[in-house]
């Protein structure tokens, strides 16, 4: 157990820090400190391409697919320097952290060659098609169907159904999705994991307005949408196992990137508390301390997860990470508005929000999407603690 870095790792650190600084004080200075999910879309896409061109897009991937074969330590270092530089949230997240690792782990060589380099170069963007309107927390309740039709080179999957909560679908090039490919199957069985192009007539994206006033999520309709017969990851019918693998990747290095956004939010709260004197309020102080502690613990837990993942283990803290950060951030949102007082409740004329009130409203979704807190607790209790399953209804 040791926290320090080798001289070679420190050299990587200064190289990465130098590049980030040059970019964010130079051509991308307008994006420094950008903390929104998807504002300034065009510039954000340019930033992804710049990362890709410098081979900083997916440093942990094999060099053959545009990565750097970076060690765990180097990935930690890059995340740290990325945060320190105030670089923007990675709008390429879905490809870089979810689609890419899934294809790396489960894809064919042809799929890897086709899909990974454009992700690493920041040229193709992805969205996730898991949730459906009737499924809710019962993720396996997939009704979107796909059937193979045509012959030979014309053989394709034809997809019909509806997905929901597909974030970033408006500009995604591809969607990785769970579809039912066995007629009459139920639950986890008979599902397949398809890679489907979004820019085609059979795909319609309709934004869902959220309580923040923004529309970061979508309903996505597939009506006779098609994709190549080869664009299935794993065997047809094996989609559930692949999708669960994707969910596991959410617990990887990306958590370190996520934490940088949290740090910005906490720093903004501290700055506000200093400015209006609330930093002297003993109740607020305890909550500031709790917030700082939670953030540090997320960092330490991420280091643990990465260390054990490197050793090929999935350790128990990985199960607890999602509920920990989601519950933490919801409290952070409440702290933010309690520090600001009534001023937090005044919007810009179009119901747009500054960072902190947006945090308050937006964080209400954290304990819902990506598995509600209730689902997370089921998973922890059953998988990590070995407690008996709930009886399933009929």
């Amino acid at each position, binding site marked *: 157990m040791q926290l320090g870095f080798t001289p070679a790792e420190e050299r990587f650190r200064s190289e990465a820090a130098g590049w980030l600084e040059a970019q964010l004080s130079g051509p991308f200075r307008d994006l420094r400190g950008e903390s929104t999910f998807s504002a300034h879309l065009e510039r954000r896409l340019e930033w992804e391409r710049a990362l890709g061109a410098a081979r900083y897009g997916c440093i942990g991937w094999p060099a053959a697919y545009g990565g750097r074969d970076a060690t765990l330590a180097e990935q930690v270092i890059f995340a740290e320097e990325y945060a320190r530089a105030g670089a923007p949230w990675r709008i390429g997240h879905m490809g870089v952290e979810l689609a890419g690792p899934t294809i790396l782990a489960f894809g064919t060589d042809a799929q890897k060659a086709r899909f990974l380099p454009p992700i690493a170069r920041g040229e193709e963007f992805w969205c996730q098609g898991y949730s459906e309107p009737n499924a809710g927390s019962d993720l396996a309740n997939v009704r979107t169907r796909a059937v193979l039709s045509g012959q030979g080179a014309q053989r394709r999957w034809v997809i019909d159904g509806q997905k929901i909560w597909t974030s970033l679908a408006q500009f995604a090039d591809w969607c990785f999705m769970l579809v039912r490919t066995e007629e009459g199957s139920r639950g986890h069985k008979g599902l397949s994991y398809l890679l489907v192009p979004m820019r085609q007539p059979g795909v319609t994206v309709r934004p869902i307005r*959220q309580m923040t006033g923004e529309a970061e*999520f979508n309903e996505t309709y597939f009506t006779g949408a098609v994709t190549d017969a080869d664009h299935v990851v794993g065997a047809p019918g094996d989609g559930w196992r692949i999708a669960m693998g994707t969910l596991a990747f959410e617990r990887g290095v990306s958590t370190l990137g996520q934490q940088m956004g949290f740090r910005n939010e906490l720093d903004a709260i501290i700055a506000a508390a200093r400015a*209006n004197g609330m930093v002297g309020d003993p109740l607020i102080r305890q909550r500031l301390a709790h917030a700082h502690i939670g953030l540090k613990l997320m960092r330490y837990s991420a280091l643990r997860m990465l260390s054990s993942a490197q050793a090929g283990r999935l350790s128990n803290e990985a199960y607890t990470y999602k509920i920990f950060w989601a519950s933490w951030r919801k409290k952070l949102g409440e702290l933010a508005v309690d520090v600001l007082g009534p001023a937090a409740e005044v919007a810009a004329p179009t119901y747009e929000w500054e960072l902190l009130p947006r945090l308050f409203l937006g964080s209400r979704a954290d304990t819902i999407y990506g598995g509600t807190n209730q689902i997370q607790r089921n998973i922890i209790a059953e998988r990590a603690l070995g407690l008996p399953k709930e009886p399933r*209804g009929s």
Partner: protein
Amino acid sequence: MQFEHTEEQLMIRSAARELLESYDSARLRAAIGAPGGYEAALWQQMGGELGWCGLALPERYGGAGLGWIELCLLQEELGRRLVASPFFASAVLGAALVMECATEAQRQELLSPLARGQMRFGCAITGPGGHPAPQGVDAEITSAGASLRLSGVADFVIHGDTADVLLVLAREGGGLSLVSIPAGTSGVHVIPHVMMDLTRPMSRIEFQDVTLGADARLGAPGAAALPLERALDLARIALAAEAVGAAERVLEMTGDYLKQRVQFGRPLGSFQALKHRMADLMTEVEAAKSAAWYAACAAQERPEECAEAAAIAKSYCCDAFYSCAAGSVQLHGGIGFTWEHDAHLYFKRARASATLLGSPVWQRERLLRVLGLGAAATPAF
């Protein structure tokens, strides 16, 4: 000693509930988008034919001569539906300020039109920092011969943009005074905000050398501080009632959803973790009802208990409302986070109600002072 509503009171409640049964999501959203942020026809109906604005006013002002218990019943019902309406600003906060601070003649003048539903008050009692009155009052009155001059800024003035008369709290000499100013008076600039809570619009109001007659001052010069406290306590009690109604309603909505929504082959409401969350919320709501009802009785019968009861009711009921509204968003899952679902409207109202007139933390600190338990620094909000 009878701690249940009387038959007459229950009739008032059911009449109100019946009237507002049709005030559904569509009507609420239409009200939010309407000029001034409320439904004018409903306001006329409430104030005019139904006499709600005069319910708790003495008969000599044209009121029904009932009391704060009955007023709070209406507040509960208005809260249930999140009715966007000048009722709280006018018939609760405004009426309480006038009743407590004004002379008899001024009451006649201001409350008689209110009883007929023809008066909307804007209570400019909060300074620009948003601290609960009278902390941080910015407006100031100076004498200018026989007339008064008012300058400064008030903020978070509920329905300030559509008020007929502004009731402005201002520093005067070493004390506080309350003045009434007709809308449109020269030097008064009303800047409507877009608020997080879409159902209770607020404005910032700037006063630039506004000239007023000496009779604009309600009561004696600099003497508003004490009656103000009593008026605020009455308003807090009514706000607590509103919060209880909203909490109960949002909990009902959530329960209905959980009974109907099936996941994993079972109604969501059969999952013990969700049942227990609901049970905890109901426990809070029931305690909140006790708090609100007792406070309403105290407002009516026991002035000496009013400050304590108001601090208890305001803090507990707003906390309970927030728990229920936040729980509702969570228990509805994704749909609860969308704009089209009403859960967020309750959630935002819950936040706004908690902030208004002193947060739960602020109320608890005040409670200890009322109980004679020393004092720590007053919280900012």
